[in-house]
């Protein structure tokens, strides 16, 4: 696990420096256009943002790793020495908030609908739901996001406050007070609905396939032969076994969640990790980019690890002796 994280952060460190363009040149250019000689401008910019591009890359890398071991992610280059940890610390809760709700609702809905589709396979409901599920899983989430954005503006203007972007009305003081909670929900509603709609399709289809395969198992026939109630068989025998592989995916999806969604958060100007990640790439804010990638890597690796542990706990058949 540690090795994977180390490999990814090393790869990321060098890769982002190979990208054309850098923030120092942008700032130096501003100074040069104002008449400051380029050499002097470079010194000024380095001092201002605390980053010296002329340092050998291996020295930069060693410093980065040393600081990382001390828990220091460095300072943002674009945001003038604001700690990266503070920027990501502000962004992570909002990403987790909208994505966890969106993920959970889409998972629960997808599982229930998938089971219903399997039980009524070949019927009208199954036909329609399969088409809907296929379409939803195929359409990129930013398309749904844009559609929702325009629908809830032009046709049903009910999220006007949320349309102003941000995670809440900036006039409200964050805390456990009613207006703040409501404002947070209003601002998060459209991203959440987007995640629910776009996530649901694949859960539905997978659950349907799993349920159909479980329905043919001997223990289901045995349960029916024992005269158990259909509802009990569906929930305790079929559902329980069919959802197992999905639960692993769900756990992994929680890991990916920390990366947010670059496109959705930008469409709704929602200040999560994806929003800052996209901006850090555009502005070539190396330290912020590195911090965001490190966060995502850790979350994904840890969630994979948890998924492994969880699966063996949930499914006794693969439990290690």
């Amino acid at each position, binding site marked *: 696990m540690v090795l994977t994280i180390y490999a990814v952060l090393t790869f990321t460190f060098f890769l982002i420096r190979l*990208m*054309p*363009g850098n923030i120092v*040149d*942008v*700032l130096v*250019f501003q100074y040069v256009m*104002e*008449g*400051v000689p*380029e050499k002097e401008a470079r010194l000024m910019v380095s*001092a201002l943002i605390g980053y010296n591009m002329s340092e050998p890359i291996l020295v930069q890398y060693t410093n980065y790793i040393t600081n990382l071991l001390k828990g220091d992610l460095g300072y943002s280059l674009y*945001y*003038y020495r604001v700690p990266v940890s503070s920027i990501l610390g*502000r962004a992570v*809760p*909002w990403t*987790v*908030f909208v994505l*966890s*709700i969106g993920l*959970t*609702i889409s998972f629960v809905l997808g599982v*229930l609908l998938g089971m219903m589709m399997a039980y009524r396979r070949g019927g009208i409901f199954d036909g329609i739901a399969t088409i809907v599920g296929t379409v939803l899983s195929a359409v990129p989430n930013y398309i749904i996001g*844009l559609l929702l*954005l*325009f629908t*809830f*503006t*032009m046709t049903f203007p009910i999220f*006007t406050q949320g*349309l*102003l972007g*941000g995670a*809440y009305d*900036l*006039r409200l*003081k*964050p*805390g*456990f007070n*009613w*207006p703040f909670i*409501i*404002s947070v929900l*209003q601002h998060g*509603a459209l991203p959440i609905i987007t995640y629910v709609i776009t996530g649901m399709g694949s859960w539905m289809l997978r659950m349907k396939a799993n349920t159909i395969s479980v329905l043919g198992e001997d223990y289901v026939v045995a349960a029916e032969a024992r005269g*158990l109630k259909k509802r009990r068989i569906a*929930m*305790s025998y079929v559902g*329980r076994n069919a*959802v197992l592989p999905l*639960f692993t995916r769900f756990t992994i999806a929680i890991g990916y969640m920390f990366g947010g969604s670059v496109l959705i958060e*930008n*469409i709704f*100007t929602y*200040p999560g990790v994806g*929003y800052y990640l996209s901006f850090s790439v*555009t*502005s070539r804010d190396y330290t912020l980019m590195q911090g965001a990638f490190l966060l995502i890597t850790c979350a994904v690796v840890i969630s994979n690890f948890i998924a492994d542990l969880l699966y063996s706990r949930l499914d006794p058949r693969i439990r290690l002796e």
Partner: protein
Amino acid sequence: MTAVLIILLVPAWTFLGNSVVAVRAQEEEEKITFTYGQPSQRPPVHGNPFIPGNYWGIPGLISEPLAFYHYTLDKYIPWLAESWEYDPDKLVFTVHLRKGVKWSDGAELTSKDVVATFYCSRIVKSWLWNYISDVKAVDDYTVNFELQKPWLLYKYYILRSRIYSYATFGRFSDKYQELLEKGADASEFESLRTEFEQFKPEGRIGTGPYTLKRISDNGAWFVKRNEYWRGIDNVPADEYIQVYIGGAAQVPPMLAGAFDFNSPDVTAEIMKEIEARPWLQCNPKPGGFMPGIAFNSKIYPLSLLEVRQAIAYAINRTEFNVGTMGDPRLAGTPEICVGMLKHQREHYLNKSFVSKYIDPYEYDPEKTIKIFEDLGFTKDTDGVWKTPNGTRLEFDLTLPAYGYWPVGADMLKAQLGRVGIKLNIRVLEIATYNDATRYGRYQIHMCSVSPNPHPWAGWNQYFVGPYDVIPGWDGRIVEVPWVGKVNVTELTVELGATTDPAREKELICELAYIWNHYLPFYDLRDWVWGFVYNTQRWIWPPLDDPFYSWHTLDEAYGLGYALLAPLIRPRAAPAPTPTPTPVPKETEAKINETLLTVRELKASIQELKTAIEELKKAAPAAAAVPMWAIGLIALLAITTIAGWVAAAMWKRPAG
């Protein structure tokens, strides 16, 4: 059951949210708010306004300028300065400050504040000090700006400077002057600069009528303070909200009436939506820059003047602009291409000069072909022209991947393709584009020239350099018919240093000719700003008011002045209801049904409101909690619900 609960929770909470926010809005109805939607990412908040690109609100809200400059009327409006005069012999610009101006900490504005402001800009090596040699306080209300040399734009840049408080920044400016007096070495100045760049003042002391209440990831909230030197009652907005919201995301709130003013990239489709809402007003006016194409004239055959001119004749600018923008009102096709904005062309160039010396480059593809034939070019097998040495007229067209550029590139490719010039479109992500074009790694690239506030600014960018940064054109010695051979760099430098209006006009004509004839850049369009003004809550000036032209040329200062003067005032009468779009009968029936439901819901909301009021009274004030705690709790709650669902499914079957 759990799933049903969850499904119902989000819409129900959102609905409740709307009601509670509506109740809150009603409670705050008395407050007059101005909301500005700015189409960009929030700039960094350093706290020190002398750091480049740093956020400090729009001019006038917290910190005010010595004077506002009204572009359209070419007039300075005295603000913190009462009057000023210039002595061309001594190169001294004297500014007399208004008496009785108070800072938000209660101190009076004096010349010490002005001197501190300019010396702090010197600490961070502001380019202004390439022209200014010293700033001295003559008395408490008089400041002398001593210039190193005559300077064309001295008044513009000095008077528009925002003044910051000596109480906050004085120790740094004093230290700098001390170092100057004692003849300190460079390292001492450098260490002062480093210290200054790390200085992030907590509060913001200003002479303006607002204080910054809060700033978040996408906006800032300013509230009116108790006292203001011009009388706080003269400022109509109790609070001012600046929302940073970029790209397509700003259009929905704009159309929903959430902004009082915003400045989106208006397209033909957005224009139609605006027109469908009579309470939104858009008054397209040419703005502060001109999109076009820059030639890298170091590369053969673009180094040939005739080739650049032939390309210009092959471009139909009207077709390009109308086709790209989709609406003739947004097209902004310039009648001539001289590197000057529309109002500058009208002001400086007379008709006889234009007709005699300026080539309008009317669309004439046959002329293009004739130029190529005269140069001895021949056509390749695929119809693309090639030079006598076999170089094909096939160029990379580099452009950034945003806005209308990609559509424009397709139009250019089609137009030039018709005359046998092949363009390979190279769309680059913005940082990559900047990197490529800044260091000359292009053949032709789409970009803008910004001759703001004076044509000199655009010419200076191309003719003075630095050439290692903008290498597109370096033909320094050129021929001007009525003058002879001139050095274009020297001409541009001279223009920047002239204060004689007659000489200024002569130089402008010469440089306009050079730009037009030698084509380092071909200006295809006068950028048209479609600023959008919401008339539901505010009364804006009539559409023919010069404010609109000023505003599109100088967005922040124009808006600052409009709020402070005030050119705009809150609408006393209730906001007009937007004209409803005709709806089919079936939809109307559904709407009526919905209305009935809404009425029932309203009754419930009233009950809810009462309950909330009771809760508010009963509950102790909520303590502020950190964001991570809220996120953690949300995550725990969701995980618990998910666990609950899972547990229900995993319940072991009996027997």
